């Protein structure tokens, strides 16, 4: 009798416990967000976390190493696995490749509140966007405000060389310009000068519509005069005018930033997000002495060009509906949170994703006004092309230019010409 009683009670308690368990697990949706350890992403995930708590969603954070992020995410998406990530970081470089595996996000509130042309790299064939913005990444010229006044800022490459050489001869800095140059750091040396010399990787310059580029035969501009001028500018900077350290061809952001932050260089080009780092006294010995400026232009330039590209969040298509809805709700909340986005800007220098918030900043933030004038007023160029083998072409381009840097000055044109076929073939390989 007693035993039966106990057993019954145990069953009852157990059953009740299970019921509680299952009811809580139904009520609480768990979402996993997969990203890399970048200050802007960390800051944006903090906004997502805030809203997840608010919406009763449990947010799991998976930080993946940058080196394997793309292969891992690609393999996850192509195999249709839906148990690893519910929200993923998406980059315009590979947005086109992944669009077919991603959920259209046009129904997320404020999804379209971005600069004109910024979401196209994430579009599906029907013109739906598969990403919402988390920030805009863009490169900008940083200079030592304690050495160069705003009136003296370089407007052309020649100015840049002259100012550098003067500062170097006065022993104020060891080097004039330092920036990343090794593969994947092409933006911070070769490309910003390329785009500011009326030049590009394929003709016509600044075109990113694959149809128009194909109609023009995917013609590489790699040995056109504007590109040769760019290569010669860097060859001189490294080898004859010596405004940049000779080892710069191997530099990633680590080396370039280390040298700039140590006060050994007058100029560098890096992501706007470094504004915070360069002015952080704990990391940089030039804190408080760093200003931002427009790019100096080359001899053939018809005006400054900046590159601005959106980093986004996306949702895999294979998710079950309840998690899709929850993830979309969360992203919508982030896009509507103007305080959170301003906090992100203040902390990291990463522009707020929602362009409505820009208007608020325009009114009461002088740094933003400066950045906005430099970055968003000039013409824009996309920092990538949108075809399958773009990464391959980028590497071929980088290898070719670095080969030219290590060779003789008179061989530059020939070296560049030798890379032309591979750059053409890269774009047409999958046609």
């Amino acid at each position: 009798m007693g035993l039966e009683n106990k057993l019954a009670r145990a069953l009852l308690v157990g059953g009740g416990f299970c019921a509680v368990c299952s009811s809580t697990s139904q009520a609480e949706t768990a979402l996993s967000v997969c990203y890399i350890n970048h200050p802007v992403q960390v800051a944006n995930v903090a906004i997502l976390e805030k809203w997840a708590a608010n919406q009763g969603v449990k947010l799991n954070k998976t930080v993946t190493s940058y080196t394997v992020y793309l292969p891992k995410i690609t393999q996850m998406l192509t195999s249709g696995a839906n148990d690893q990530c519910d929200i993923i970081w998406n980059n315009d470089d590979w947005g086109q490749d992944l669009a077919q595996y991603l959920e259209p996000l046009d129904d997320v509130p404020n999804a379209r509140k971005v600069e004109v042309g910024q979401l196209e790299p994430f579009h599906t064939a029907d013109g739906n966007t598969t990403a919402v913005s988390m920030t805009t990444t863009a490169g900008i010229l940083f200079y030592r405000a304690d050495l160069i006044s705003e009136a003296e800022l370089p407007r052309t490459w020649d100015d840049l060389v002259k100012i550098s050489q003067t500062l170097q001869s006065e022993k104020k800095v060891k080097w004039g310009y330092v920036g990343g140059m090794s593969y994947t750091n092409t933006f911070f040396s070769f490309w910003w000068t390329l785009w500011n010399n009326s030049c590009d990787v394929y003709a016509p310059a600044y075109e990113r519509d694959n149809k128009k580029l194909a109609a023009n035969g995917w013609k590489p501009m790699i040995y056109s005069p504007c590109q040769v001028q760019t290569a010669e500018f860097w060859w001189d900077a490294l080898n004859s005018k010596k405004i940049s350290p000779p080892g710069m061809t191997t530099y990633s952001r680590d080396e370039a930033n280390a040298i700039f932050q140590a006060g050994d260089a007058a100029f560098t080009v890096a992501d706007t997000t470094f504004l915070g780092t360069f002015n952080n006294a704990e990391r940089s010995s030039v804190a408080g002495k760093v200003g931002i400026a427009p790019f100096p232009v080359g001899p053939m330039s018809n005006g400054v060009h900046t590159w601005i590209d959106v980093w986004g969040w996306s949702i895999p298509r294979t998710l079950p509906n309840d998690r899709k809805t929850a993830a979309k709700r969360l992203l919508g909340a982030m896009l509507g949170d103007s305080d959170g986005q301003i906090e992100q800007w203040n902390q990291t220098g990463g522009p707020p994703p929602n362009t409505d918030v820009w208007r608020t900043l325009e009114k009461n933030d002088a740094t933003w006004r400066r950045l906005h004038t430099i970055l968003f007023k000039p013409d824009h160029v996309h920092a990538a092309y949108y075809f399958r083998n773009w990464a391959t072409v980028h590497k071929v381009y980088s290898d070719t230019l670095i080969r030219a840097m290590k060779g003789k000055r008179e061989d530059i044109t020939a070296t560049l010409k030798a890379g032309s076929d591979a750059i053409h073939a890269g774009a047409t390989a999958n046609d």
Partner: protein
Amino acid sequence: MTARFTKFGFDEKERFMLFLIAPAAIVLACFEIIPILIGMNASFREWSLVNPQRTWVGPKQYIAVFTDPVFLKMVLPNTFVLTIVSVGVSLALGLALASLLNRPFFGRAVVRTIILLPLTIAPVITATMMRWSFNDQFGVITIFLSYLGLPDVAWLSDRWPSFALIIITDIWIWTPWFTIILLAAMQGLPPEPFEAARIDAATPWCIFRRVTLPMLRPVIIVCVLIRAIDAFRTFDQVWILTGGGPARSTEVFSVYAYVLAFVDLDIGRAAAAAGIGALIMLFVGVGLYRLVNRSMEVS
């Protein structure tokens, strides 16, 4: 005759043999052989990680790799130079250090621990540290060398210095490995031949050449083979130190395959490149085995 065979077709000894290798064979099959076969299957296909079509294309990928001038003129020679120099120098240093440690002296245990230090750090960290230490602007070692009055070398940005740096790093990581195995082998050698040589008043060099080396032969063969195979597929150090640059001039075979797989996301071509590497190593390994065997018999 038939009585020796059981219903499985194996006799008692053979069943024992199979039983001994069974666990190893199962793990090997599931987590090495099957993935490799999947990879090999991919090497005959047009297989991109994005939008995988998996169209059968026959040996097209192999032909593409074999007709790639970069693979033939840069990647293969670099890989062989790296393998030969790294294994050769680490073997020589390993023998020297092992002989040094093979006799008692004050503080031997400390020196032995010091020599093992490189094994306790992940090669990725070692390579990153070398990269910073040899930087032309802030590298501690570069600055130390110029303080000693040596001429400035662009360690990372010129082809041969950066290739030398890759090899130096590899040697630094792997010399302890040779040392420890050779030292263990030396301590296991029987004392009689050495006593006989000493009675004949042979010089230490002569004893090393005529007595120690021949007795160490089997160990050296296995060490050289195992290390040569590993050196042939060195990846971490090269990728971190130079990324194969400047302009692909220090690219080795596994960097070539890595770029295909992880940058181009072209699984098919990458698998073909890896397969070619494995085949080359297979034949080189057999040749090396014969060569080492013969050269040591002669000496």
